[in-house]
């Protein structure tokens, strides 16, 4: 650092800088090194000496211009604000519908559907203990359930994100509902938010259902189907969220996620798809942690690196392919159960980070998210947080306002180096698919998680209410957790049984057989069969069970 400073500065600035350094040193005495989550050292001050103005256009440029460090569009939030895309998921389809209609009234421009954990696991509501249903997401097992969820929702105008992993039965149900309403599939917009099967295997969350190789096939078929039949849908969302939540540092998260994107792009190329038609429909999904400047630098570096990868490594020619589009969700891992109202301050901070990072859409967590599915009031506060930041703090007025900050530009460059070294490691392991198969990525994440935990234990990393500023537990009155109405759940389970019984057995069996046949044939599009099966009344659990049988069940790859 010292050498760089001496090199770059004109002499009057130089001497003022040295003067500051001496006063600082004198007052501070011996100092401890401060590092951010990615392990990079954080200096007390950044100055003209730290800025790398030489290759301005190459490294920074202007918004909407390669390499997009300052933003992927020329206008960014000033032209069009980020989409507020709040996750909703609770109880029965009726509960979902009630919540989503209220949210549409309060200014949400896009919706996101979170299914019940049982659905994530590939189970129908009659296959699991009733007490577990609908507590963390909406129970959706059939096309009729989806119909109920979206009653009165103009799906041809509103963008809908589906949060289920492959085989994407939720999208299949959505398309079925669109057909019933006479809406052409070209009008359906949204994203398969959790299509990134690699991230699910890495972070071992509730998400994976099919084997790694089966998932690979399924995703490619999904991409191929959507390109042709649902052209305004984003079939690929490359997810950094799970890895960061599992403990990966921001640099690792971005490195792994970009490596995954490379893997999917290459898989598509092998399939014979044209790279631009594929990349223009790639989006990314990240957690936004509270490590303020590090996160902003991570995303700016991410944009720069992706642009280069898309153009130079993958050979994309369309500038839209070089754009790093991402949805951000404020990180639930930073929230605490102790003194939950503090989480409002945390989410606000994270939301600011997201906006300053230049995201395209955002979900803000509710303050009670650590304890249960959000209450209406908490969900409303979460949305208003975004509204306040936009309308009162005017965070949309200036594009990339942190750009040019000596700190941010220096940190962006440093993060770029870190992220690239992670990508190199993955390349050396043969690409992301192989790296995950071998457990390399999981091991790296586990180490970072343990390291962070040690910092919390030792008190180096302070968490308000947890290891400092604590309150006696008794003093706090916790809001009662959300639980769906047990009678409503029971009624749903009953009506589900009736639904199944009322179907034509032969139609259902034929649809399942077709699905199985397609799974064993390389020439069929598997997702197309899922959509067909859904329309014929096959349930979510039946579809997943069939595919598990044919393609293999997903198993965690754990090296303990």
């Amino acid at each position, binding site marked *: 650092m010292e050498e760089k400073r001496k090199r770059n500065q004109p002499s009057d600035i130089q001497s003022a800088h040295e003067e500051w350094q001496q006063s600082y040193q004198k007052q501070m005495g011996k100092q401890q090194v401060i590092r951010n989550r990615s392990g990079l050292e954080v200096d007390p001050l950044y100055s003209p000496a730290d800025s790398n103005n030489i290759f301005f256009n190459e490294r920074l440029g202007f918004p909407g211009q390669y390499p997009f460090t300052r933003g992927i569009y020329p206008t960014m939030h000033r032209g069009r604000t980020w989409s507020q895309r709040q996750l909703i998921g609770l109880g029965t389809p009726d509960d979902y519908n009630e919540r989503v209609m209220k949210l549409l009234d309060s200014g949400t421009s896009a919706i996101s559907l979170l299914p019940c954990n049982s659905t994530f*696991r590939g189970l129908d509501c009659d296959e699991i203990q009733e007490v577990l249903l609908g*507590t*963390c997401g909406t129970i959706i097992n059939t096309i009729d359930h989806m119909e109920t969820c979206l009653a009165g929702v103009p799906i041809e105008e509103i963008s809908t994100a589906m949060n289920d992993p492959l085989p994407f039965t939720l999208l299949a149900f959505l398309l079925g509902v669109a057909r019933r309403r006479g809406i052409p599939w070209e009008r359906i917009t949204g994203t398969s938010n959790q299509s990134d099967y690699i991230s699910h295997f890495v972070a071992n969350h*509730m998400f994976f259902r099919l084997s790694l190789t089966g998932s690979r096939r399924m995703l490619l078929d999904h991409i191929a189907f959507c390109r042709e039949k649902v052209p305004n849908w984003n079939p690929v969302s490359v997810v950094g969220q799970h890895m960061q939540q599992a403990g990966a540092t921001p640099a690792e998260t971005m490195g792994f996620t970009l490596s995954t994107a490379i893997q999917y792009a290459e898989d598509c190329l092998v399939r014979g798809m044209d790279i631009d038609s594929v990349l223009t429909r790639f989006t990314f999904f990240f957690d936004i942690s509270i490590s303020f400047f590090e996160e902003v630098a991570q995303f700016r570096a991410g944009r720069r690196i992706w642009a280069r990868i898309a153009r130079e490594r993958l050979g994309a020619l369309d500038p839209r392919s070089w754009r790093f589009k991402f949805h951000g969700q404020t990180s639930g891992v930073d929230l605490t159960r102790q003194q939950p109202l503090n989480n409002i301050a945390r989410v606000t901070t994270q939301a600011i980070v997201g906006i300053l990072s230049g995201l395209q859409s955002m979900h803000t967590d509710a303050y009670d998210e*650590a*304890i249960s599915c959000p209450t209406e009031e908490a969900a409303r506060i979460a949305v208003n947080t975004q509204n306040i930041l936009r309308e009162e703090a005017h965070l949309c007025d200036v594009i990339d306002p942190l750009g040019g900050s000596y700190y941010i530009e220096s940190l962006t460059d440093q993060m770029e180096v870190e992220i690239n070294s992670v990508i190199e490691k993955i390349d050396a392991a043969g690409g992301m698919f192989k790296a995950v198969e071998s457990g390399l990525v999981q091991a790296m994440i586990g180490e970072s998680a*343990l390291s962070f935990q040690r910092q919390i234990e030792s008190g180096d990393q302070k968490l308000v209410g947890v290891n400092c500023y604590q309150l006696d537990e008794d003093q706090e009155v916790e809001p009662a*957790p959300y639980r769906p109405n047990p009678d409503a759940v029971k009624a749903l389970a009953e009506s589900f049984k009736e639904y199944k019984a009322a179907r034509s057995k032969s139609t259902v069996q034929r649809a399942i057989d077709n699905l199985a046949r397609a799974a064993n044939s390389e020439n069929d599009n598997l997702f197309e069969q899922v959509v067909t099966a859904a329309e014929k009344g096959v349930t979510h659990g039946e579809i997943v069970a069939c595919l598990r049988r044919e393609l293999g069940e997903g198993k965690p790859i754990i090296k303990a």
Partner: protein
Amino acid sequence: MHESEVQMESPPRVLITKIGLDGHDRGSRIVAAYLRDAGMEVIYTPPWQTIDAVVGISRQEDIDIIGLSSLATDHLIIPELMTTLTNEGLDAVRVVVGGIIPQNEIQKLLDSGVSKVFGPGTLREEIIDNVKSLALSAQKLKRQKWEEA
């Protein structure tokens, strides 16, 4: 512990697992590492184990303590696990739960036979001390069971 050490204390055998639907296991892995570093033998499974599987593993592995992690709502089926353990003759096995349990639902767990519920922010030493002492009592119960003629 060198293999030639003559009287080996019986290191606690702990099963770290998750039942129900949620798969977030970052906390489980960290606790597993803590317990190993404290000299214990940890059998670690991925999440989504059925209750029957947990009981079967506990039997085969001579488990002293089952450490369950619950962050969402899977704690709601823990009473079912406790009943099954008793019915299967494994009531010597102690069960502890870590994670996020709503305040008003903790007592129900304790009433069902869970020995301890650790909230977020519980210090490592507290977990280790509790697991050690519960393991000792589990081992004692098993010894009594098997060594009475």
